[in-house]
């Protein structure tokens, strides 16, 4: 049998990755943000029921993001930090996903969400010279494209609309909104513009703070940035309240049980670090392969990976 031993990325794409990483390192060096290195193999994995960690028998889990460890560094007084590391997610494979990928993640103590968005756009100015940017509130953008309000439209109307666009049956409201966002709304964003989307519904808060909007609805202090049809960045004004963190762990754990997933115990190290005190901060994660795909106008992750999962 002949094996596919050759890399799927061209030499040019391999060089582009090296170039992108050196641009990113120079960007943070100039701003006094410290590069750090945290474990990829740890006893606890993320509790989020929509992210599956890869277990390593006898050791724990390959990390789906360096978030928990980086927050422990922040609580210990590291100041602003960034990391470029591998991250692992079981089952995430497709034209734009590989179970092992490279993540760029950074945290800025003292930054609110808009300060961090500005810093992301400054970095993107170096990576994607000349690309204009525009900011949308999730709710307004969703309503403009679909004619439905993601927070106040009835569940059945949102679910029915998602099904009209080919969604599987039995979605709940949150999943129906996610589906419409991923299919119709993202597709409507101008490809050649850096589109910043803010104020996500509170159910999509993950580890972000929430706040009450002017009309009383709860929104998450979270943003995403899209460019050339790719979701490039996902940022939060970070939750710092250890008790709220514990409640979210408990909710995740209950949902994991309902979905029939493995139980993920709350990470006691993270909770203790947050009890000690996580400084007010904002943080963002970006997929390095996505950045490369956007730079090279590619829509296949294979083209920027030396050896994707099926030939690694």
């Amino acid at each position: 049998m002949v094996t596919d031993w050759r890399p799927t990325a061209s030499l040019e794409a391999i060089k582009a990755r090296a170039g992108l990483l050196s641009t990113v390192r120079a960007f943070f060096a100039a701003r006094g943000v410290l590069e750090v290195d945290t474990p990829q193999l740890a006893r606890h994995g993320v509790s989020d029921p929509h992210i599956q960690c890869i277990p390593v028998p006898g050791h724990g889990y390959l990390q789906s993001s360096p978030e928990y460890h980086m927050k422990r560094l922040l609580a210990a007084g590291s100041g602003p930090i960034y990391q470029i590391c591998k991250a692992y997610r079981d089952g995430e494979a497709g034209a734009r996903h590989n179970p092992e990928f490279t993540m760029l993640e950074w945290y800025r103590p003292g930054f609110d969400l808009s300060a961090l968005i500005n810093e992301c756009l400054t970095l993107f100015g170096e990576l994607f010279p000349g690309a204009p940017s525009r900011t949308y509130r999730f709710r307004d953008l969703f309503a403009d494209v679909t004619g439905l309000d993601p927070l106040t439209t009835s569940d059945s109307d949102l679910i029915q609309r998602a099904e009209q666009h080919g969604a599987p049956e039995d979605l709940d409201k949150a999943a129906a909104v996610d589906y419409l966002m991923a299919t119709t709304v993202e597709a409507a964003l101008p490809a050649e513009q850096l589109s910043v989307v803010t104020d996500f519904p509170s159910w999509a808060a993950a580890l972000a703070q929430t706040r009450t909007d002017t009309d009383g609805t709860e929104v998450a202090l979270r943003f995403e940035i899209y460019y050339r049809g790719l979701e490039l960045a996902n940022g939060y004004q970070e939750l710092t309240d250890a008790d709220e963190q514990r409640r979210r762990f408990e909710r995740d754990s209950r949902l994991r049980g309902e979905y029939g997933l493995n139980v993920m115990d709350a990470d006691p190290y993270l909770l203790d670090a947050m009890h000690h005190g996580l400084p007010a901060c904002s943080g963002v994660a970006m997929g390095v392969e996505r950045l490369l795909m956007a730079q090279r106008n590619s829509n296949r992750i294979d083209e920027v990976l030396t050896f994707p999962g099926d030939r690694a």
Partner: protein
Amino acid sequence: MASYSTSEFKSGLKVMLDGDPCAIIENEFVKPGKGQAFSRVKLRNLKTGKVWERTFKSGDSLEGADVLDVQMQYIFSDGEFWHFMDTETFEQKQADEAAVGDAKQWLKEEDMCEVTLYNGEPLNVNPPNFVELEIVETDPGLKGDTAGTGGKPATLSTGAVIRVPLFVQEGEIAKVDTRTGEYAGRIKN
């Protein structure tokens, strides 16, 4: 049959959907924000050849389809069925017109074909990429014209009609690319 979850979906996997065997063409993992992940899947219905697009929730699964691609030799047609033989076991299978489809115009006795078996019966027949067939009818071409600019129609022994260069004559053997139905040269006797 085993069942496959969305994380196992990949191009070429054969699964059952709405009671029909299908081959997965493409599986695109879609993960909007922090929520429910989906698999947007393109499948070819192996019975009809139609391409379907479906979206599944991550973790959903489909039953595998008992579909197998095997190399078989075409033996003969009795008008109703086209008969194929496994050259190792000598086992024979008969394919109906629906299974043979467009392949029938390229089938020459003793040629090896790829036969897709579903629950052990022929579902689809793929002719070889190139076949060599005798030209049984074509207008005499003009002497000296070798450029073959427009070409002319020629009927092959199987009844298929292709376009050939003007210099090609009746009784010659044409090589045909069955994927495009185009003339690909002639075989010198």
